[in-house]
C-alpha cells in the first residue's frame, strides 16, 4: 500500500511548526523537510513486507527524495506481483479548514516483494532525520528497566521473558511483568486461552495502596464455557491478599455475550468468584473511524449554518466517544484509587480501547505520568511496546477513500482525551497542547521510527531500532523540551478527576480547526503565557 501526499510547502511548515525554531531550520538544510516522510511495513506470511506506505511532503527541497521514490516505484512495478496491482493516482484538492491542500495519492493494493522492500529500506535510511545528536539507545525505557525501577513490585511480581522470541504473544514485548508465583509454562497456557496470546500483564502499580491495573485480551471461553485453570490462578495471584478485583470490559454485556458465540467471551462469575465484571461499552474500529471522518468533514465547511454544524457535530459522535473514554477511565481510576482494588482491563483484542483507558487512568492517578518525560514514557509503554497496531490504525486519517477495515483513530482519541484533561487541569500536566498536536501529526506522518509497525516484533524484524530515530527521545532534547513543556506546570500529588459533563467537554479546536486564523490567536495566547512566565521567572531569580 502506497500513499503519497504532496502538499504545498506552507502546509508542510505547519506540520512541522512545533519544532520550527531557528536551530531546527538550520539543521533541515540538508533536506530535512523533504525527509518528513514516513513509511512502514509489516511482515506478512510469505515475505516480511505486506504493506508499505508513505506520506511524503513534496517541497522544492525534496527532489532527491522524489528521485528515489521514482526508482522504488519502478522496482515496484517491475515485480511479478504487479500484475495484481491496481494503481490509482488521484489528484485531489482537499479543503482542509478553508485551506487548499493539494494532495496526490497513490494507492495500490498489493504485496510487495522483498526486492521492493530493500529499495524502500534505502529510501528510509535517506529519510532519517539528519540530526545525529541522539543517543544510541532507542526508546526511553524498556520493560526490564521499568521493572527494575519499580522496587515495590518485586515482592509479588516478576519479569517474565517467556515471550522473548515473540512466540507466546506476537504483539507483546519480549519481557512482561506477571505475578511472581505464575511460571512461564502457565503463562503459555494462559496465552492460549486469550485472544492473540495477550495474557494478563501488569501495566500500572499504584504506590499509594499497592493495587494494580492489568490488561489482556478477552478470554476464549467460547459458547461452551471453556475454562482455563491457569488463567484463573493468574488472576487470583494478582489480587492475593485482597478480597476482590474488578474486570472492566470495554464492551457491553450484550457484545461480550455475542463474542462468546464466536469463540471469544468473558470470565464467568462461577469460575472467577472474586472478580467483579463491569461492562462499559466503548466504540472501536470502524465506528470510530466513521466518527472521525464525519467530524473532519463537518469542520471542513465554514459556510454551514449553525443548526447544520451542531447537528453534524452531534452526528459525528466524536465528543460522545471522548466522554465515554474519559468516564470509563475515571471509573477505572476510581476502582484503583478510591475503592482500593486491582483491575483487569480488556476489550476484545486488548490493543485499542484497553490501552486508551489504562493510559488515561494512569494520567489521572499518577503524578509522574503527568510530567513530560513521564507522559512520553507512558505512551511508549502502553502504546508502542504494548502493541497498538499503529501502522494499521493510523494509515490514512480522515481523508481516505479506501475504507480500510483496520483504520481507526484510537490514538487520536487518546490525545483528544488528554487535551480535555489539560483543559480542565491546565496546571497539572507538565506538557503543552503543542506536544499533543505534534504527536497527532507524527502518528500519521513522521520521520521517526517510533510509530512505525504494529508491534515490537515487527520493529525488531525490520531493524527499526537500528535504522531510525526515536521520536520520544527527540522530543526531550532541550530546545524541543522548551516548546513542549507547560510553562504553568505545578506538580501535584493528587489525582485529577476529569469532569465528563457534556458542558465540560469541548471540541479540540487546536487540532480539528488548526488551519483557521482563530487557531493562530490561540497560539499567540500560549506564546504570551510563556513569555509572562519567563519574565516572571527571570525577575524572581534576579
Amino acid at each position, binding site marked *: 500500500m502506497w500513499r503519497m501526499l504532496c502538499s504545498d510547502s506552507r502546509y508542510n511548515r505547519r506540520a512541522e511548526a512545533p519544532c520550527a525554531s531557528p536551530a531546527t531550520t538550520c539543521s533541515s538544510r540538508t533536506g530535512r523537510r523533504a525527509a518528513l516522510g514516513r513509511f512502514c511495513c509489516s511482515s506478512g506470511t510469505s515475505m516480511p513486507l505486506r504493506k508499505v506506505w508513505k506520506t511524503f511532503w513534496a517541497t522544492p527541497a525534496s527532489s532527491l527524495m522524489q528521485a528515489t521514490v521514482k526508482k522504488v516505484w519502478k522496482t515496484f512495478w517491475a515485480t511479478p506481483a504487479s500484475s495484481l496491482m491496481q494503481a490509482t493516482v488521484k489528484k485531489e484538492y482537499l479543503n482542509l479548514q478553508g485551506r487548499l491542500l493539494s494532495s496526490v495519492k497513490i494507492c495500490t493494493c498489493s504485496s510487495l516483494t522483498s526486492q521492493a522492500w530493500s529499495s524502500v529500506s534505502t529510501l528510509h535510511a535517506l529519510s532519517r532525520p539528519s540530526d545525529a545528536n541522539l543517543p544510541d539507545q532507542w526508546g526511553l525505557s524498556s520493560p526490564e528497566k521499568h521493572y527494575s525501577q519499580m522496587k515495590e513490585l518485586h515482592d509479588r511480581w516478576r519479569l517474565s521473558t517467556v515471550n522473548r522470541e515473540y512466540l507466546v504473544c506476537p504483539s507483546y514485548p519480549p519481557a512482561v511483568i506477571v505475578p511472581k508465583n505464575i511460571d512461564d509454562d502457565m503463562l503459555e497456557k494462559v496465552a492460549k486461552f486469550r485472544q492473540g496470546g495477550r495474557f494478563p500483564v501488569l501495566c500500572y502499580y499504584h504506590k499509594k495502596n499497592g493495587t494494580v491495573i492489568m490488561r489482556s485480551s478477552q478470554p476464549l471461553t467460547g459458547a461452551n464455557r471453556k475454562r482455563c485453570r491457569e488463567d484463573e490462578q493468574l488472576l487470583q495471584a494478582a489480587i492475593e491478599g485482597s478480597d476482590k478485583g474488578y474486570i472492566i470490559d470495554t464492551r457491553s454485556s450484550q457484545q461480550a455475550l455475542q463474542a462468546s458465540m464466536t469463540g471469544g467471551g468473558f470470565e464467568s462469575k462461577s469460575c472467577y468468584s472474586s472478580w*467483579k465484571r*463491569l461492562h462499559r461499552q466503548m466504540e472501536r474500529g470502524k465506528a470510530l473511524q466513521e466518527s472521525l471522518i464525519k467530524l473532519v468533514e463537518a*469542520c471542513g465547511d465554514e*459556510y*454551514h*449554518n*449553525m*443548526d447544520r*454544524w*451542531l*447537528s453534524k*457535530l*452531534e452526528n459525528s459522535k466524536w*465528543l*460522545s466517544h471522548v*466522554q465515554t473514554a474519559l*468516564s*470509563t477511565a*475515571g*471509573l477505572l481510576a*476510581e476502582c484503583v484509587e*478510591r*475503592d482500593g*482494588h486491582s483491575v483487569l482491563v480488556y476489550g476484545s483484542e486488548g490493543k485499542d480501547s484497553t490501552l486508551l483507558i489504562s493510559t488515561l487512568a494512569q494520567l489521572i492517578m499518577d503524578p509522574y505520568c503527568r510530567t513530560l518525560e513521564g507522559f512520553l514514557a507512558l505512551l511508549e509503554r502502553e502504546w508502542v511496546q504494548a502493541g497498538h497496531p499503529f501502522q494499521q490504525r493510523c494509515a490514512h486519517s480522515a481523508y481516505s477513500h479506501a475504507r480500510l477495515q483496520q483504520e481507526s483513530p484510537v490514538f487520536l482519541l487518546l490525545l483528544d482525551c488528554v487535551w480535555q484533561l489539560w483543559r*480542565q*487541569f*491546565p*496546571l*497539572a500536566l507538565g506538557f503543552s497542547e503543542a506536544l499533543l498536536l505534534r504527536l497527532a501529526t507524527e502518528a500519521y506522518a513522521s520521520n521517526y521510527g517510533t510509530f512505525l509497525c504494529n508491534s515490537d516484533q515487527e520493529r525488531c524484524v525490520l531493524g527499526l531500532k537500528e535504522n531510525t530515530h526515536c521520536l520520544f527521545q527527540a522530543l526531550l532534547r532541550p530546545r524541543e523540551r522548551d516548546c513542549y513543556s507547560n510553562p*504553568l506546570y*505545578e506538580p*501535584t500529588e*493528587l*489525582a*485529577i*478527576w476529569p*469532569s*465528563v*459533563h*457534556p*458542558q*465540560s*467537554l*469541548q471540541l479540540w*479546536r487546536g487540532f480539528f*480547526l488548526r488551519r*483557521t486564523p*482563530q487557531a493562530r*490567536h490561540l497560539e*499567540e*495566547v500560549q506564546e*504570551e*503565557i510563556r513569555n*509572562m*512566565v519567563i*519574565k*516572571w521567572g527571570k*525577575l*524572581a531569580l*534576579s
Partner: protein
Amino acid sequence: MEHIRLPKVENVRLLDRVSPRRSRVGTLYLTATHTIFVENKTGVRNETWVLHSLVCSVEKQAAAASGCSLLIHCKNFQVLHFVVPREQECHDVHLSLQRLSQPVLCLAERHTELYCFSYKPNVDEKERCQEWDFLDLKADYSRMGLPNSLWKLSPVNQHYKVSDSYPADLFVPASATPPVIVGSSKFRSRGRFPTLSYYSKENHAAICRSSQPLSGFSARCLEDEQMLEAILRSNPCSDFMYVVDTRPKLNAIANRAAGKGYENEDNYSNIKFQFIGIENIHVMRNSQQKMLGACELRSPSMSDFLEGLESSGWLKHIKAVLDAGIFIAKAVAEEGVSVLVHCSDGWDRTAQVCSVACVLLDPYYRTLRGLMVLIEKDWVSFGHKFSHRCNHLVGDPKEVSPIIDQFLECVWQLMEQFPCAFEFNARFLITIHSHIYSCQYGNFIDLKLLRERTHSLWSYLWKNQADYINPLYRPDHSQTQGLLRPSTAPYCFKFWRGLYNRFDQGMHPRQSVEDYLRAIREETQQLEEQLKIAHLEQEQEWSVTQKAVTFDKSPTAWALGNDLGLANTPQDYTGGFITSSPCQPKAPDGRRILLTQDSNQTSESNLSSGSDQESGIADVSCRSPLSTDSTRDPDSDEAAYSAA
C-alpha cells in the same frame, strides 16, 4: 416583612442539581431580602444566600414521602432544589417567596420594594453622589471628537419632549434643524428619530440609530428624508449610506400593515437598504428557555446536550447578532460609509447591533471602562427597557427577553476568539449580568429618583477592577489594534458554560490559568518596582533587597489556595457498581456549589458584591477564588458509588 409567613424552617435538604443523590441538610431562613440556607454541620459554616430579586420562579412539586420539593430558578441561572419535610411549611415558604420575589409597583411609594432602595453599603452620602458621576457620556462623545463641524449637540430633546425614551443630550448632523428633527421624530415609532450612536474620527463615518419609520404602504415624510440626507452629508467621504433593518424581512413587511415598516429606497436619496434578520424578543426568550432546559438535563449524554443546544437555536441567534455587528463595523471601518440602524422600536436589536459594532470597531470599548461606557450609552441612555426585559417588577411575561444577555454573550464569544484583545475577563461580564438582574444598583432601573437614593454599579466595578482584569491583555498587542475581524463560521461559537452553568461547580475547569497568570503578573510588577528601587539604592543594600525578592517557586496568591483540593474528587462516571464497599467515612462535604460564607458575611457591606457573595460561586467571589477550595474535602463524593 409582612410577607414572610415562616421565617425559619429546619431540616431542609438542598439537593445537588448535577447529582441529586448528594444533598445537604440545614436550616432555611427567610429574610426581607434574602433566603439563606445554613448547613447543619459542625466546623464548617456553609451558607447559601439567594437574593429575592434574583428569583425568577418558585415551583412547588407534589409532596413525596421524603418531603415536599421546592424548585427555585434564579435569573442568574442558579437552580436550587430544596426538600422541605412538611407540606404546610413548604406551602408557606412557597407563598412567601413568591411574594418576596415579585416587588410590586404601587403608585404611592413607587418601586420602594426594589432591592436597590434597601441596599445600604457602608458609604456616606457624598461618596454615593460621586458614584453617579463616575461615568460621563459627554466625555465619551468628546473622545470621539464631538461636537465638530459635522455633528452638533442638539438641545431638542432637553426635556424629553420629542422622545421620552431618548437621552436629553443627542448628537445630530450639523445641518439638521429642529423642525427637521421634530418632523422626522413624528414619522418614527415612539418619536425615536435618527441620531448618532458612534462616530469614527478617522473617516467621519457614523453609526446612527432610530426606530422604524411609519411608512405603512406608501407614506412619506419630507423631514425624515432630509434627516437621512443630512446624515449622509455629514460624511463628506461617502456618497451613499446604509440603512440597516435588523429584523427579518417578513416581520418588517408585516409591520407595514400596521402603518409602520421600513424605508423605501426610492424615496430616500442614495441609501442602500439592508435586512439583517435578527429574530424578535419572543423568539429569543423561547430560545433561551430551551437552551436552559438543555443545561438543566440530569446526566445528559453528549448527544442529548448537543441536540438540545441545536434545537434551542440560541447560538444561531448569537451568530445573527454578531453578523449584523460585523456588517456595520466593516461598513464604517473599511468602506467609510455611515450606517443607520433600526429595528421596530430601536431599543432591543438596535442596541445589540450598535454596541457589538462599537466593540468591534473601537479598542476603547474593549477596556474595562469602555464597556461600562458602552452599556451606559447604547443601552441605558437610549432607553433599553431593562425593567421589562429583565422582569424587575411584576409585569407582562411576554415583555421579558434576554436581549442584554445576548450582547454580553457576543462580547464573550469575541473574547474567546481574541483572548488578548480585551482588558476585562469573563468574570466582569458575568458580574454585570447578575447585577443587571439583581436590582441591587440603580443603574438599570428606569426611575428618576434613583440617583438620590441608590448606588451605581459602575463605580463598584471600578473599585474592584483588580478582579476583572484579563492578565493576557496588552494594549500594544496585535490582537488589540483596530477593527476586530472575528470569524463567524459556526464552529467558532461555543456554549457559554461559565454563565449558563455557572453554579454547577463540577463542570468548570478545576484550575484557573487566569488566576495563576494574574498572580504572576502582580508579582512581576512588584518585582520590577523593587528592582527599580534596588537600582537606585546603594550597593551594600543590594543584599537586603535580594532577600525580599526571593520567592518560592509558586506565586504567592497561588500558594494561598489548595489548587487541587477540588480536583481530588471523582466525577460521576456513571459509576453505579461498587455497592458493597463504602468509601472513606464522610468528611465535611466540600465539593458544593457554594462558598463557605463565614468570612464573606462580615465584609458584605463594604464589598457590596451582594448577589455574588450570596450565591457564592467561586468565579465571582473575587476575593480569593482559590482559598475557598481549601475548605473542600477531597474525599466526599459518594455519588459515583451509588447503585446503578
